[in-house]
């Protein structure tokens, strides 16, 4: 079984989804999908252990050797991502039951869980596969699942949010596909490692360079890089709480992974940074994005929306790390991919608990929370501190590396931009904490959120602190992944 791990991660939700869709009621679909997500997590963790001992795990689908067949290639970068995706799914699914009963309803619950499994499957597939066209297929699977899930939100604006994301997502995927098409025409292969081997010889050609532009633009749309982020705030705000938690923690991160994979592995650093204006385009966008989105966060009355804009800002930090083009910057970016997944997953789940009790997530719903829902409130405080980057939380670990990477390059203006971004985060997190601590509760009789919501929330909060203190796992893997990527990644 151990040699089939790469495919098992993906296969478990794939086989489970139709079964779940055929079930009735809300309990059994929930039980089955939760168990499947835990199984996936187990596989992902074992896979990571395997990668740690071997460095690279290759799985050929159906025994067909690449480049004829499809192969899965797992190195440190995607092993880490797989753990993040399946880990978040394993926490969000147990959490989803109460939240879904209230926000989606029992009737549509089987479809909901099936779509959630498909989303997980799609994200895992994109991450695990070593084939460029396969990435597109999984991208479509995850996107279609996402459109469905967003549309299940209680607010009617969820429909327009979903439709808007559908159009933008499709354009992004199409751009990606066009780029892949160009590359196929030029090289005759779709295997990532194979592409990486053949491209250097022909990278002067304008077809390859056009392919690069299409692929980068398409992926930047999916990862919500400023100014291509406009689909994100509405999509996050109007989705059901559980969906926002999973999307916010993993979806854009997977797109980041695809960007990293293409920039560093397929096209290579020399091409991406030397011959293409990647740094020149990404750095200004990342910096403007992180400052602008953080500022917009401050003015948001709806906390869910505030966190959505904050996600756009965090993408700015991540892209900044990538655009530095150094091992240190890439380490910081990968760390923040993982750490921000933990932070935003936790925070959106806290908001789901607030939604469950208060019926909304506006600032007025958060008032006086310290007294009425202390466990929920302190979870938000710790998650918020992590978002700001206070020591002993995961947020500190990634910002530390990002600043170190910027200092290493002598980019002091970037250091200042990161600092201003942190200060803005202090403001937008601080005003929620202040309202919770000093505000008058709207309804003092409201009770603490049920344990079914609180336990998953606190598991993630605990992870925020644990990985903030014991950084051996995350930092070592991120460094190993960055080293691998700088050296060409999945190509041996």
């Amino acid at each position, binding site marked *: 079984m151990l040699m089939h791990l790469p495919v098992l991660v993906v296969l478990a939700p794939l086989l489970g989804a139709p079964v779940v869709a055929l079930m009735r009621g809300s309990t059994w679909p929930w039980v089955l999908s939760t168990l499947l997500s835990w199984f996936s997590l187990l596989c992902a963790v074992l896979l990571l252990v395997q990668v740690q001992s071997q460095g690279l795990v290759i799985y050929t689908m159906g025994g067909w050797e690449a480049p004829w067949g499809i192969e899965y290639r797992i190195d440190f970068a995607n092993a880490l991502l797989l753990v993040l995706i399946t880990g978040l799914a394993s926490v969000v699914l147990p959490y989803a039951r109460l939240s879904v009963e209230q926000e989606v309803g029992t009737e549509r619950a089987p479809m909901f869980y099936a779509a959630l499994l498909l989303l997980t499957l799609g994200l895992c597939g994109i991450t695990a596969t070593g084939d460029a066209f396969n990435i597109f297929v999984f991208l479509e699977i995850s996107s279609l699942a996402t459109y469905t899930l967003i549309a299940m939100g209680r607010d009617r604006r969820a429909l*327009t949010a979903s439709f808007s994301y559908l159009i933008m997502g499709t354009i992004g995927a199409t751009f990606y596909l066009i780029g892949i098409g160009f590359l196929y025409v030029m090289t005759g292969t779709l295997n990532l490692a194979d592409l990486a081997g053949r491209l250097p010889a022909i990278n002067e050609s304008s077809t390859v360079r056009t392919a*690069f*532009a299409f692929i*980068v633009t398409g992926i930047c749309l999916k990862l919500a890089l400023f100014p291509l982020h406009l689909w994100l705030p509405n999509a996050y705000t109007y989705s059901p709480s559980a969906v926002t938690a999973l999307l916010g923690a993993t979806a854009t991160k997977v797109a980041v992974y695809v960007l990293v994979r293409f920039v560093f592995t397929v096209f290579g650093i020399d091409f991406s940074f030397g011959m293409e204006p990647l740094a020149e385009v990404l750095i200004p966008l990342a910096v403007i994005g992180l400052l*602008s989105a953080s500022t917009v966060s401050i003015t948001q009355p709806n906390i869910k929306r505030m966190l959505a804009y904050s996600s756009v800002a965090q993408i700015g930090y991540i892209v900044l790390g990538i655009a530095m083009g150094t091992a240190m910057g890439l380490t910081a970016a990968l760390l923040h991919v993982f750490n921000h997944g933990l932070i935003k997953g936790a925070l959106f789940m806290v908001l789901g608990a607030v939604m469950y009790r208060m019926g909304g997530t506006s600032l007025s719903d958060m008032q006086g929370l310290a007294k009425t829902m202390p466990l929920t409130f302190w979870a938000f405080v710790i998650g918020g501190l992590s978002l700001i980057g206070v020591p002993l939380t995961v947020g500190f670990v990634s910002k*530390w590396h990002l600043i170190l990477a910027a200092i290493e390059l002598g980019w002091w203006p970037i250091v200042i931009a990161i600092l201003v971004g942190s*200060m803005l985060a202090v403001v937008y997190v601080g005003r929620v904490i202040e309202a919770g601590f000093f505000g008058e509760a709207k309804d003092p009789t409201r009770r603490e959120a049920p344990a079914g919501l609180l336990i998953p929330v606190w598991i993630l909060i605990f992870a925020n602190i644990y990985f903030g203190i014991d950084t051996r796992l995350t*930092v070592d893997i991120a460094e190993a992944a960055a080293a691998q990527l700088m050296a060409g990644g999945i190509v041996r």
Partner: protein
Amino acid sequence: MFPPALIMIVGAMLIPVAPVRLRPALLILTPLLTLLMIWNLGDGLLLTAPFLNYEIALVETSDVRRLFATIFALMAMVSGLYMFRHARVVEMSASLAYAAGAVGVSFAGDLLSLYLFWEFMVLFSIIVVWSGGTEQARGAGIRYAIMLLIGGIILKIGIEGVYAQTGSHDIQALALDSVATWMLLVGVLIHAAAPPVSAWLADANPSASPTGSVILSAFTTKTAVLALIMLFPGQQVLVWIGMYMIVYGIIYALLENDIRRMLAYAIVNQVGFMVVGVGIGTELAINGVVAFAFAHIIFQALLLMSAGVVVIQTGKRNLRDLGGLYRSMPVTAICGTIGALAMSAFPLTSGFVSGVMITESAASGEPAWPRYGLLAGMAGVFLFVGLKFAWLVFFGKDEGLQAKDPAWNMQAAMIIFAAACVLLGISPGLWYQFLPYEVPYASYTVSHLLTQLVMLLLAGAVFFVCMSWLRRLSIRVIDTDFIYRRAGVQMWRSFVRLLVILSGVLHTRVLDPGKRLPQLWIRYHGPEGPLARTWPTGSMLLWVAVMLVVILIGARLL
């Protein structure tokens, strides 16, 4: 093996969940356990842990570190005794965690672990301020948080810069030869309440609860002094900064009428003496600073305890409403007076045997002027704390206030610290042996006694001449915090507003050119906005195209 701070951290975590009766025990016994552990630690680097990709030194001991950790744990214990019947659960728990952070900083063996414990400490001190629970505490807590978080960020960049340049996180005397070390210094000085941000201390400390003020007086500024001792001994610039703090503290304390706020200014003044001592940097001076910090934490806490008792028992905090309390609350009056005498460096108190060491170290150094500054400073201290505070509150004109001495635990806490002030003062040999350097020094020489007594007499004469003026004095004091409370907040607001406008323009004019009016941006972002009309699909598409073209053309230009 584990960091000594962990004991108190566990205690702090247990307090909210423990049964009510066990809470005082946790509050008082965990610092005691810490104290025992501190004195059973060996020397040198004892514990490292992997963090990020470094091996950080969590516990490293030395004489200075051990002395600071001792006083921090002792302070936590006695103030726990003082506060446990009065404070809220949050305040108790946060106080203990705050003290634990300070103990952690004392033993931190490198810059990174120092920073970790440091921020831990600051975080919980913010909660202590907020636990005051009043509207004033809310505002002051936010200002305090912003000031110290900025200090923390500067400190962090300094540490990262030092690491990037030297490849080492070691705590050692640094030269002020690069941006990074300057940032490190500035970050530490902000926490020491150095100019121009001294005002945060007098803003935050009295806004906390009376018990919170006691806690807040001890840790933040003194850990900063410890960091200065270890990182920047002998930096000339510190003499100037410290001297400014001494003068600043005296002037504002003399002008202030709120007793707790006045004592908060006293902290700035006292830390000023220590900063000057670090700036002088000789072995005698460092010995003096360490001894003075040790003594200072005790008498400063004692003074704030007595002031807290006065505020709690009488409900009054203004000097003009207080007086003659020695009749109704003799224990508080005696303890408060001992504290005041100790701070004024009266012979036979701990302030004398430690404070004079700093002035003496200045005597042998070059240039000579700091010595006279320090002497004058000591006289000034006697003026505001010995005479203005102790005399006017406990003696002086009887205002006929009906108040009693406080509950037994508060009395016990004050008596313990008052006894410590006297004991350390009459037998300096007892604790001189623990000081970091072996420098022959005798406290009770004729010249020391004479100089000090002359100074005190002069100050006394000045006071009784000006007493009625000092008592009636009521002018609105404008402190430097005025600048950052008004101008700073204004600047920050304008900055944010500018960013908001810029992003507004960006989102309407640039990103979504279909709309023309900037106000629409707000409506669009508002939850009730006409979202259906403003779904930005079209304009996003435009941006996709722009980005594509930029990459395509950019590639040609490269």
